[in-house]
């Protein structure tokens, strides 16, 4: 990527690079702490510069972009709902992102309640009575949007950081909420 390209940058899956080529000895995995170090320092800087709310919005938006690209590049959107969820579960587990489970799914109005246990972003964090998985909220919204073709609003209702053991997400199409 050139400096000029960087000014009008739009993420592409290929930008993740050829990891096998670049890391022949260290491989394609790292520690969860390293990921969290990046996320929470970035969050800190964003919050300091733009305020807490905007920082959360930025993380949510980035998560949505990630979910969108992840779905387009790693998931089979031709599968039926159960098959799609099963594949998403397998992928998130294989990547050590978390253990995704569905608690409720109303396929008529597309209202879903999903949980993520052993979540990459938050499981094991100190408890400070707040939900912190805005990136996950965006990620799930992005995945569901690509799969269903509808824009989703995803809200984290329970989180490890708020004192729960499982992160719980409530997802529903945006137009349903505005009714």
């Amino acid at each position, binding site marked *: 990527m050139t400096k000029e390209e960087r000014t009008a940058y739009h993420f592409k899956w290929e930008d993740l690079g050829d990891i096998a080529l670049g890391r022949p000895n260290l491989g394609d995995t790292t520690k969860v702490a390293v990921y969290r170090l990046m996320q929470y320092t970035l969050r800190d800087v964003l919050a300091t510069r733009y305020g807490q709310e905007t920082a959360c919005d930025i993380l949510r938006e980035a998560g949505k972009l990630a979910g969108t690209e992840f779905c387009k590049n790693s998931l089979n959107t031709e599968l039926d709902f159960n098959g799609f969820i099963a594949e998403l579960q397998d992928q998130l587990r294989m990547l050590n992102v978390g253990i995704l489970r569905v608690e409720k799914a109303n396929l008529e109005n597309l209202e879903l309640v999903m949980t993520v246990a052993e979540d990459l972003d938050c499981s094991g964090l100190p408890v400070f009575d707040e939900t912190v998985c805005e990136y996950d909220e965006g990620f799930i919204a992005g995945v569901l949007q690509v799969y269903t073709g509808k824009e989703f609003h995803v809200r984290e209702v329970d989180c490890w950081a708020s004192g*729960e053991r499982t992160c719980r997400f409530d997802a529903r199409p945006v137009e349903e909420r505005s009714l």
Partner: protein
Amino acid sequence: MNEQERCLLRELTEQLARAVRGNFTEIALSGSGGPEVDALADMIAKLVGEMKEAQEFIAALSLGRLDVDPPRRNHLISSFKQLHSNLRHLTWQTQQIAAGDLNQRVDFLGEFSVAFNSLIASLREKRLAEDRLRYVSNHDPLTDLYNRSYFTEEMERIERGRRFPVSIMLADLDGLKRVNDTLGHAVGDRLIQQAAQVIRQAVRGDDVVARIGGDEFAIILPGTDTATANEVRNRIRKGEELFNLENDSYLIGISIGIDTAEQGGSLTEALRNADKKMYEDKFARKQAGGPGRKEDE
């Protein structure tokens, strides 16, 4: 410590003793003490309140009331919340299984996971066996086409349906006996399979093609008028011609009769007419000395 504080401590002790016995009724404190005692009283009230919430939630959980949400921010029952979440997911999975999805898999529930997954594996095997049985009971093993029994059922079903006009085609293989007698039954079987292939390639996916006798095939063409059925016949003729160009050890010849039922209640008659027309075609082909004519019949 003054008397008021000692009184408060006694009340708080009683409050805790009751909680230990499972009674979470709040005791009205007789007043307030110093900041430390008041802070202690607040924390005990909070603890007893959370124990009460926990007890209600666990009681509901033990009755299978998964619709009762766990109390938020209650850290006393983290493990029960995890169990509640697992059971909710398990409920959803069971609903999916009941709806026919046998790809569900349970993890992280110890021996229950093993038992559940082995139950699903058994159901999967049972379904495969049922599917296989259903397939065998509906299909002709030599050609993989439907068999006579399925054809009869479909005739009845389509008769009651709305996809009229329905054309019925009867096709009879010419010269099978001669091939069997001169080249053997294995070659005769191959001829039947290849003729079946020619017919199948000429029809649509949802048309019903059945082998209803040794060398006899029947095809139901729903939503097909006479002109379109004749196009199907032409495609069969083309397939027959192509096969005969590429093979010289034996030839495929198929006599065909078609009739069209314009409305419900007339399919059996159409089948009878198609049969009659098929024999007329066979006679004409025999007279013309076409490929694969039944010299022995």
